[in-house]
Structure formats: C-alpha cells, structure tokens
C-alpha cells in the first residue's frame, strides 16, 4: 500500500493544487507510472537529500509531499530550487495530476 499526499502553491501565477490518493485506487497505468517515478526519485534511499537553501526566490512553487509506503513514511516541505534532479519528474507529474484533479472536480 502506497499513499501519496501532495500539495503545491505559488509560482508567477500564484496557483495551487493538491493530490491525495492511495495508488491502488488509481487507474493501473497511472498507478504504475507513479510507482516507477517514486522508485526513481530515490526518496526512501538513506542518502536522499533536498538541496540546501534558506534563500527563497520570488515566484517559485512551494510543495509538501507525504508518502506512506509499507510502514515507512516520508514527509517533505520544499520549494523549486531545493528539488534534487531525481525527484523532479515525480513532482512534475504530481503537479499535473493535482491540476487535472482540480479541473475535473470543478467541471
């Protein structure tokens, strides 16, 4: 069982969105895609680190990401300039799903 709780806000457009789902409840293709992105993000690797900064540039996105997976839980708060390259594809996809979800829900 893997649960994802993702939210983001900010940017030039000051938009926000969230995506909270158990991967089992997603369509198979999306569930598989997210699982693979999660794996390649190396988020559960012991040496996984966000980039360090206390500088907060204007107009960047801020994120919170909570992943619960087989008894493990990872909670992260970060912004665009702190994302390691391995994590970028997962965040990009979750951002997209969050906006899709928002659009679908409102329609």
């Amino acid at each position: 069982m893997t649960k994802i709780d993702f939210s983001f806000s900010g940017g030039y457009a000051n938009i926000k969105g969230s995506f909270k789902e158990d991967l089992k409840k997603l369509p198979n293709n999306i569930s598989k895609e997210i699982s693979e992105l999660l794996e390649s993000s190396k988020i559960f690797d012991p040496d996984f680190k966000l980039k360090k900064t206390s500088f907060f540039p204007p107009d960047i996105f801020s994120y919170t990401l909570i992943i619960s997976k087989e008894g493990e839980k990872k909670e992260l708060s970060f912004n665009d300039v702190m994302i390691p390259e391995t994590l970028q594809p997962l965040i990009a996809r979750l951002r997209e799903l969050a906006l899709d979800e928002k659009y679908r829900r409102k329609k």
Partner: protein
Amino acid sequence: MRSLQRKHDHNFCFCSYVPPQVLENLARAGIKEAVLSINQSKISREKRDLKDIKTDNFMMEFTSLESVGKASRYVYDSKNSWMQRVDKPVRKEGGKAISDKTVNLVYDFVGDVREYFKKIHGRKSIDDANMDLILNVHYGEKYQNAFWDGDEMTFGDGDGEIFVDFAKSLDVIAHELTHGVVQWEANLEYKGQPGALNEHFADVFGTVITQWVEKQTAKNADWLIGDEIMGPKLSGEALRSMIEPGTAYDNDLMGKDPQPSHMKDYYSGPDDNYGVHINSGIPNKVFYLVANEMEIGTKDASMIWYDALKNLWPTANFNDAVKVIVRSAQTLTEKKIVPKGSTQKVRAAFKEVGLPTT
C-alpha cells in the same frame, strides 16, 4: 565567482555598530546610508546561502565567472530537462536568430527590458554593474512557471492548456527581471508586506516596460498582468488587474481573483507567503491611479517608483512605502523631473486605498 559587490559597497557602512532596528528607524527617516547598510548586509547573507545550492556544479560557477560584466544575453536550452545552463548557450549577445521561436522571443524581450532600464533610468543591467543575463528556456516538462532565482532566469513551456509558454510574454519577463532589480536595490523580503511590495514593483515595471515597448499610454494600456500566458482553458483571463484588482479572473480552475484594492480588504492569512501576490493589489491600484486617473502618466509615475525602490529596505511595510514614494515625488518635483502637484496626487492616490494606515 560573480561579483557580489554592489555599486554602493564602497560607501561608508555602519552596519556592524548599529542595531538593525535602529538602522530601520534611520532608513524610515530618510537616511540614505542606513538604507544602503541594511540592504548590503542582507544581500550578502542571501547570496552566500544561494551559492550553497550551486556548489555541486563547479562548471556552473565557472560559466558564471566567464560571463560577468558586459550585460550580455546568454540563452540556454534546458531541452525539457530540470537543469539550468545545459551545454553551451544556443544564442549569445549579437548572435543571429535561430529556428527556436522561444529562444528568439526571450532574447528580444530581455533586450527590451535591459534597454528600458538603461535609457529611462540609466541603469546598467539588473545589478547596475553590467551583470550578464543568463536565460534558460524549455525548463522541465510542462513546467507552468518562470522565475528569477537570484542569479538567472528560468522559463517553463507551460502545459499548453492552462498556461502557454511563459517566455512569450514581455510582461512575465519584465516582471521577473524586475525581481532581480529589487534584489539589488531594496532587497525586499519575500513575505508579508515587504513581499507584497516586492511583487508590486515587479508588476509595476512589468506593465511599464510593456507600455514603453508597445508605445502605449496610461490611457490605452490594458494594465493586465499575465494575460498573454493564459492557455485555451483560461482564454480571456489574466492573473492580475492593476485597474481593478480582484477582477482579473473568475473561473473553475483558478477560483476568483483574491486581490484587494483597498486596505479594508487586506488579506492577513498565511497563504501565498502571507499574501505577497494578493495584497500587492493595493499598491498596484495606487500606481494605476497615479499614472492614469491623476494624469501623471506612466513614465513620470515610473520615475517616482524607481527612485523610491532605491530608497526602500528589506523589511519596509506599506506605510514605509507611502512615506518613501511621497518623498521621491517631492524630490523629483523639486528637480523638475516630474510635474508640480505630483506629490499631492501620489498622496491622494494612497488615500483612496486607505494608506497610510494609522
């Protein structure tokens, strides 16, 4: 390393001896040296922090070293990766247009912004010391943003549905590069009222530069921010309206534009870094009133705001901004740079939005 020195660094600095709160009071009283000391000390700290991000890539720093000092444009293609400065620049200063339309648009628009600050305000690039302009396009996949990271600019392509290519808008580019100018001048903190002022100055010069390039006047300009990057799902909408903050958008995807246009509707919650993109609507309305309704005109109003930006400091709030902007209007009236009566018009415009607060 890129020079972190600012043009005033050689001026005397009493930042080591005077407590910060005293410096801020001196800045409020219009003591220029206090403003410079506060800004100098803050920017040095922030740049040191920022450099930590980049020390994992020595070549990035090395590229930075090579390109300092000529206000030259260097456009890099991120090729939809999440990296900045990928390979070599695809277009450099003076280089011919290439087949990538985004690269050429960014190159031209950044040239417009650089030209505006030089011709109208005598400013030499973002830092007023001929800093080179590093520009990254096609950053990430469907990345719906553009940002100035303290050192260089980065543009996403948008998703093509909600937002289109962020590089195709002069508004966006002028806004983001103005964040760089703010960083080297007032260096306003990015939260609460200082953050809303930071966004305000970026919106002001975003629209001022667009009007300058497109030869518009305060009367015929649209005073909209971000309308050019709206995709098919948001066609006809904008991100902010300086004429009437709170009316830029109202749709299912984004909700309703939350910007207030008066202090009575001030947003005091924690979202958006305590309202940096929200409460900027209040001073934005003031600038519009001064430039258009009170008939000072966009150019003269921008002279006042630019002068004020150089006299503000990182923690300045809205009341501080009123004082400093009014003081700039007085100074520029005395120097006959703006017409007589400008000071009173600026005060009247602030009064219309409920500023200063008591």
